C-alpha cells in the first residue's frame, strides 16, 4: 500500500476513534450529577479509552457482518455505524431512541447496520453471536458475527459453552475480548489465575490472537485476517485486546481516587491514548495539520450538538407504549 493510501486509511480511522471519543466525552460532560439537571436518566458505561478496539474490529467488517455487545456498548454501536441521534435519544429515554427508550444505554442496537443487540447481563450475548453465525452457516452465507466481550466475560461458563460449539462447527464467529483489567472495581488477578487469557480459547482448539487494543491499525489488520479466515471456512477465533477504561465503571466521572486503582496506573494507560496515538502519527507524517484537526473537531462537534439537540427535543414515549411489543 502506498504511503498516501496508508495515510488515507489512518485518517479515516482517526475520524472514527475521534468521533467515539468526542461523543463519549460529550455524554460525560452533559450527564450531570446530584443537584444538576439530569436528562440522561439511565446508567452509562462509557467506552473512553477503549475506542481503538471497537473501531479496529468494526472497520474490518461489512455492514452485513453482525456485532453483539454488552453493557459497555457505545463504542461498538458507533463503530459499527449506529447513528448518534437514535443513540442519544435512547439514552435520553425518548420514543425515537434506537429501541424506543426501552433499554437505555446498556441495550444499544442498530440492526440495520449489523449492530444486532447489546445485552447487559455479562456474557449473555455471546451465544447470540454464535447462533447468528450458525444461521449463516446453515444458509451458506459467509457473514461474520462478532461477540464483543470484556475480560470478566471469560469467567462465565457460557463463554466456554459457546466457544466449544463455535469451534466444533467451525462457525464464523470472532470473540473480541477487550481486557481493560477490571470487572467493575475488581482487578483481573483477583478473578482469574495467572495465565495468558488467550489460553481460554486454546481450551477449545480455537485460534487466539493477542494485539495491543490501543493500536487501531494493529487491531484492524488482525481482525481483517481473522475475518478472511472465517469467510474461507477456517472457523472462529478469539482476539484479545489490551486496553483500559479511563472513567468509572458506570457513570461520567474519573474514579482513580476511590482506592481500587491508582492514578499512576491510569496515567500509564493514558499515555497510550489510542486517539492521541494516531493523531501524533498523522501529524508526524504531515497528514494532519492544526487546521485539519480544528475543522474535523468542529464538524464532529456540530454533529454531536445536533444529536443532543435532537435527543433533548424528541418526545418521551407515551405510557401505553410500555404495553406494546410484549408478544409478536
Amino acid at each position, binding site marked *: 500500500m502506498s504511503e498516501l493510501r496508508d495515510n488515507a486509511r489512518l485518517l479515516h480511522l482517526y475520524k472514527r476513534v475521534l468521533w467515539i471519543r468526542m461523543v463519549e466525552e460529550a455524554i460525560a460532560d452533559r450527564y450531570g450529577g446530584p443537584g444538576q439537571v439530569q436528562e440522561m436518566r439511565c446508567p452509562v458505561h462509557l467506552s473512553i479509552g477503549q475506542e481503538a478496539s471497537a473501531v479496529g474490529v468494526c472497520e474490518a467488517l461489512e455492514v452485513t457482518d453482525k456485532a453483539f455487545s454488552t453493557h459497555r456498548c457505545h463504542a461498538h454501536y458507533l463503530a459499527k455505524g449506529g447513528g448518534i441521534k437514535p443513540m442519544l435519544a435512547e439514552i435520553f429515554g425518548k420514543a425515537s431512541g*434506537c*429501541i*424506543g427508550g*426501552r*433499554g437505555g444505554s446498556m*441495550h444499544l*442496537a442498530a*440492526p440495520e447496520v449489523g449492530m*444486532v*443487540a447489546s*445485552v447487559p*447481563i455479562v456474557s*449473555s*450475548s*455471546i*451465544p*447470540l*453471536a*454464535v*447462533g*447468528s*453465525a*450458525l*444461521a*449463516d452457516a*446453515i444458509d451458506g452465507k459467509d457473514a461474520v458475527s462478532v461477540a464483543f466481550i470484556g475480560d470478566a466475560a471469560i469467567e462465565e*461458563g*457460557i463463554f*466456554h*459453552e*459457546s466457544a*466449544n*460449539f463455535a469451534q*466444533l462447527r467451525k462457525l464464523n464467529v470472532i470473540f473480541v475480548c477487550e481486557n481493560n483489567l477490571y470487572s467493575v472495581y475488581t482487578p483481573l488477578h483477583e478473578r482469574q489465575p495467572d495465565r495468558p487469557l488467550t489460553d481460554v480459547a486454546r481450551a477449545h482448539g480455537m485460534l487466539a490472537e493477542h494485539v495491543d487494543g490501543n493500536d487501531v491499525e494493529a487491531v484492524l489488520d488482525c481482525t481483517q485476517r481473522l475475518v478472511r479466515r472465517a469467510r474461507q471456512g477456517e472457523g472462529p477465533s478469539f482476539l484479545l485486546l489490551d486496553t483500559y477504561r479511563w472513567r468509572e465503571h458506570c457513570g461520567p466521572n474519573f474514579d482513580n481516587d476511590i482506592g481500587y486503582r491508582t492514578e499512576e496506573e491510569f496515567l500509564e494507560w493514558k499515555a497510550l491514548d489510542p486517539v492521541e496515538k494516531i493523531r501524533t502519527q498523522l501529524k508526524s507524517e504531515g497528514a494532519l495539520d492544526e487546521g485539519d484537526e480544528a475543522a474535523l473537531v468542529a464538524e464532529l462537534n456540530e454533529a454531536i450538538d445536533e444529536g443532543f439537540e435532537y435527543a433533548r427535543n424528541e418526545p418521551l414515549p407515551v405510557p401505553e407504549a410500555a404495553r*406494546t*411489543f*410484549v*408478544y*409478536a
Partner: protein
Amino acid sequence: MSDLKTINTGTAIRDGLAEVAKRDQNVLFFAEGVADPSSMFGTLKDLGDVIGPERLIEMPVAENGLCGVAIGTAMMGKRPVISFQRVEFALLAIEQFIDNAAKMHYISNGHHTAPIVLRVVIGRGWGQGPEHSQSLEPLFAHIPGLKVAMPTYPADAKGMVVAAVEDDNPVVLIEHRWCHYVQGQVPDGYYSGSLDGPKMLRSGKDVTIVATSYPVLEAMRAAEALANIGVEAEVFDLRVLRPLNLDDIFDSIRKTGSLITVDTGFRILGMGSEIIAQVTESCFGALQRAPLRIGMPDHPTPSSRGMLPGLYPDSVRIVNESCAMLGVSEDRRAAAEKELIEARGDLPLDVPDPHFRGPF
C-alpha cells in the same frame, strides 16, 4: 378431512414436528442426542430422513450456551425447536429464556423476534428421584413474553406443537413423560392447533375441574367415577398456561359455582393459585363454596415407591375432594372410590396406569 390414525401423544408430537419442518425450512432441531437411537423418547424419530441432517443440531451438554445459540438463530429468522429430556436441564438456561428470549421482541422495540420452541419433559415413575421429576411450570408461566403450554392428548398435542413452531414468540412446551403414552385418533398430515385457551373435555353442572397435563387424565377418570354416583363434573384441560385465558372457566364457574384445580407441579404458587385468584376476582358472586387446589405436596419427590402412596394427585383424591366439597353422602363416595381402586388393581404406583393409555 384427512385420515385418522391411532397413535400416542409422543408420536403425534413427532408427526407435528415433521410436518411443520417439511413446510418451513427455517425450522431447526436442537437436542442432546437429536438423532440418536432414543431420539428424545421417539418424539424426534427419523426427522433426519424427513428434512435432512443439516437442520438437526446436536447439542453439546451445555444447555445455557446452546439455548442462547438457538435464540441467536431465531433472531436471524430460524425457528429452532430445543428438546430436553427433563425440565431440570432447562434450569441451566433460564437466564437466556427470561432475559433474551422472552424480552427480545420488547427490548428491540419490535425489531427482533425469537420464535423458539423449548420442549421440556416432566419425569415420573421408576424411581426418578427428586432431580428428574420436577414440573416447575410456574417458573416459565410467570414470565411475560413467553408462551407456555402443556399438551395432554395426541391430536391436540400435534396441533399445539405445530402452532408453537409457527408462533413468532418463544413457546415453552412442557410435556409429561407419561402423556407420551396416551393414545388417540390423530388426523394425518399437517394441521395447526391453537395456543389460545383451555378446552372443555366434559360438561357437567356440579363442579368445575381444571387440570393440566397428566392430571387431566386423572380428572377425566374421576369424572367418570363421579358420574356413576350422580355427580356431574365439568372438566377442562388448561392447555395454555401463558397467556392465560380463563373466560371459559369463568363461564363454567357461573354454572357450577364450584372449582377444583389439579396441578401437575407443586400446589403452592401453582397454576391453581392463579386460577383461583382470577376466578375469585372475576366471579366472586358465582362461587358457591370455597374452591380447592390439588397439586404436588410441598417437598421434593423421593425415588422410592414406598413414599409414593398419596403423593401424586390422582383420580381417587379428586373424587374424594369433590365429594367433600359437594357434600356427597359417604356411601356414594365410597362406591366411587372403590370402583377406581379396583380398576387400578395391584398395579405398582411407579408405572403409568394402562387405563390412561387410551385410545381416547
